[in-house]
């Protein structure tokens, strides 16, 4: 029987495996281009990283002062936040290396533990953080070489604590995000937090200036207990020759390292013992069988109604789509609220004549965002696309259902925007509302006509609830930009001309005429879609059914 390979030999094997995978990926031109793109990205990242490192070193050199915490501690905060947050953001956005795959081999727990730690140390964010910490240390040592005995162990403990906090947090995050539902929820939560921070920052700053947020001051002492503050205290102690401060800071960091090390080891033990985290293994609760009848939409063919219902269900379960629904009113609020709070002449921008254009501009902006989905209409169907091809329906019915669902969402968004504009500024007038709504069909129909064709010719499969790496084909981007630009540009010209001349009712009539022409184009393209699909269905299936 073969013995278990030593830890070093196992690590060597893993490196060799990764190397062979890289070499094999270069067999295709796609793989070669990917490597070039990654190399260029890594070079640019390294240049930026080195630049930031030099800046940190210079700042550390300039900031150092005995017993003064502020300067170096701020720099340590930067390193700490980057080290901890960057991997988390990357983990929510996409797939990470799964160490559980290694457990198929006879791997000792100690080796498994070290591989996990080393991976944390040598992943791009870990390497950058380590480089920055090194530059920071060099800057301080250049200022006063005699601090080395106090500085070196403190910063080494800071690095170890960071590494173990990061690995522990990551391993627990992996546990929490093990199910698809949790991942999607976390992705949505992250977006809400990012948007919320942007939204709240001006309000918090304004409140802080007015002294309305004293509770934030209470939080500051708690920050003293966090690793960057402890490391900052040890650094300041080293400069002042205060060994008690150095020892206190280092002990605090060691405690962090030990505590998070234990948490990390606990998670790894569970993984090592074969913990299964997928949905299928989760305890299943029985659910009552309720089968409701499908939607009844008067005047709509049953198959088209079924497609529309499916599309609406898909849209409302899709985080990026929901984000797009929330984004325009949110941006409108973000732009308008600070101006409205300013209470001065700036507010006239929102409440004055230009405010009358707010609703059509917001609808145009939201259409621009939503139309991207119309150019890759099968993106989220995945292998389900085969249903369209095996069911006794014509593709034009399917596309009509999809387009109707899309139009319903654009309509819903327009209604939301009307309310948002009314609350933040003033209600758009009747003529403005009518002209805006009359412009929508012409813009949408032209884009649907072209989008339906592009969806068949250049399909791309998108993963649900994921934003990272979801790009349509290059040709789709180009064509959609041209058509969206032309159709929205023409609508804007007609609208502005009508508004300036005070003849918005004429603009409304022009939009109705354009809408009729667009309908003619749309119907003509729709009639051809089944023939086009017959030619291109292999492309569609190959792209959407790939695993």
């Amino acid at each position, binding site marked *: 029987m073969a013995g278990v390979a030593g830890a070093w030999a196992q690590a060597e094997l893993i490196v060799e495996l990764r190397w062979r995978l890289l070499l094999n990926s270069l067999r295709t031109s796609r793989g070669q281009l990917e490597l070039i793109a990654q190399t260029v990205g890594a070079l640019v990242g390294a240049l930026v990283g080195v630049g930031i490192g030099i800046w940190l070193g210079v700042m550390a050199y300039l900031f150092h002062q005995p017993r003064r915490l502020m300067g170096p501690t701020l720099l340590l905060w930067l390193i700490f936040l980057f080290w901890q947050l960057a991997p988390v953001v990357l983990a929510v956005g996409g797939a990470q290396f799964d160490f559980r795959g290694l457990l198929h081999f006879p791997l000792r727990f100690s080796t498994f533990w070290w591989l996990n730690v080393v991976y944390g140390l040598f992943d791009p964010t870990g390497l950058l953080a380590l480089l920055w910490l090194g530059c920071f240390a060099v800057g301080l040592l250049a200022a006063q070489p005699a601090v080395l005995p106090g500085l070196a162990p403190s910063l080494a403990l800071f690095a170890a604590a960071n590494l173990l906090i990061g690995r522990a947090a990551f391993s627990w995050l992996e546990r929490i995000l093990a199910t698809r539902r949790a991942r999607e929820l976390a992705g949505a939560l992250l977006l809400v937090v990012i948007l919320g921070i942007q939204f709240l920052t001006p309000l918090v700053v304004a409140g802080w200036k007015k002294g309305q947020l004293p509770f934030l001051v209470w939080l500051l002492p708690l920050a003293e207990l966090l690793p960057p503050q402890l490391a900052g205290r040890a650094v300041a102690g080293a400069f002042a020759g205060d060994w008690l401060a150095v020892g206190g800071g280092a002990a605090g960091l060691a405690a962090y390292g030990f505590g998070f090390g234990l948490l990390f080891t606990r998670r790894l033990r569970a993984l090592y013992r074969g913990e299964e985290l997928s949905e299928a293994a989760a305890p299943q609760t029985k659910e009552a069988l309720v089968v409701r009848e499908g939607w009844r939409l008067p005047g709509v063919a049953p198959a088209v*109604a079924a497609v529309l219902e499916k599309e609406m269900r898909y849209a409302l379960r899709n985080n990026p789509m929901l984000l797009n629904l929330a984004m325009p009113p949110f941006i409108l609020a973000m732009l308008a609220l600070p101006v409205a709070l300013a209470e001065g002449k700036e507010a006239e921008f929102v409440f004055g004549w230009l405010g009358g254009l707010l609703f059509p501009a917001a609808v145009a902006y939201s259409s621009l965002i939503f139309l991207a989905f119309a150019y890759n209409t099968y993106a989220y169907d995945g292998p389900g696309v085969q249903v369209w091809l095996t069911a*006794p329906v014509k593709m034009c019915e399917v596309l009509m259902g999809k387009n109707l669902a899309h139009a319903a969402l654009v309509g819903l968004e327009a209604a939301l925007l009307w309310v948002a504009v009314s609350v933040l500024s003033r209600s758009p007038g009747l003529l403005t509302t009518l002209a805006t709504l009359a412009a929508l069909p012409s813009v949408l129909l032209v884009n649907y006509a072209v989008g339906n064709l592009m969806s068949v010719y250049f399909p791309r499969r998108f993963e649900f609830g994921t934003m990272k790496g979801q790009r349509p084909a290059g040709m789709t981007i180009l064509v959609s930009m041209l058509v969206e630009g032309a159709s929205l540009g023409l609508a804007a010209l007609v609208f502005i001309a009508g508004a300036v001349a005070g003849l918005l009712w004429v603009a409304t009539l022009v939009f109705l005429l354009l809408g009729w022409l667009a309908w003619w184009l749309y119907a003509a393209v729709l009639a051809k879609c089944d023939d086009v699909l017959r030619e291109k269905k292999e492309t569609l299936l190959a792209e959407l059914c790939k695993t």
Partner: protein
Amino acid sequence: MNGPAIETQSLSRRFGALEAVKKLDLRVERGQFFGFLGPNGAGKSTTIKMLTGLLEPTAGRIRILDLDLAAEPVEVKRQIGVVPEGLMLFERLTGPEHLNFVGRMYGLDRRTAAERAAELLEFMGLADRAKTLIADYSHGMKKKLAMAAAIIHGPKILFLDEPFEGVDAIAAGTLKATLNRMIARGATIFLTSHVLEIVERLCSHVGIIHQGELVAQGSIDALRAGVEAQLAANTAAQAPGGRLTLEQIFLEIVGGTRAAEQELSWLA
């Protein structure tokens, strides 16, 4: 009209330089349980995709229940059900939503679609996962749901591509019960599978495709008799004792070699 359930004439499909299916003349009678066999890459999936309208043939004709697939695709699709290898499921719907949707796509009214969906979910043992998204189903559950979706409109012919792959014994039992029930009611079933024991137990007739060509077609008993006669005539070959299994028939027809009898002395 009472022609065969499935009939192809010189059916061919080319992918660039590769001729995946070569002038296939296939005939499956109504009510037959037909197994379509072949080694990996022989052209089974390509054939089933062409028969179900998922792939355009390069040449040849397909008639399903006396209807020309190229001329009347929608009418043909109304008569058939399909469970392709890459299951055609909308994974962000729940099981009931998906069945309801597919039923309506096949022309069922809203009430009938909902009633049949509930009945099928009960039959397939999926009723207690009614609120779960399909994305969260196990592989076996997805196979059963795909089968339910394929038969919700009561098709006269059911096409299945590797229906038992990755399915446990319990799920396989449900699938087999469903297929036998359909056969008992006069439907035609066309399936591909690598599990020859299952094909032998379920199917009355088989077709064997090898390197894109149909090398044998008929009832299992007829094929067995043919191979046994050939083996008896060939004195160099040693006929295996007893009745030939489908696996042995298959290996004889496609010329597969049996496992090399090397020593592998290091194996425990």
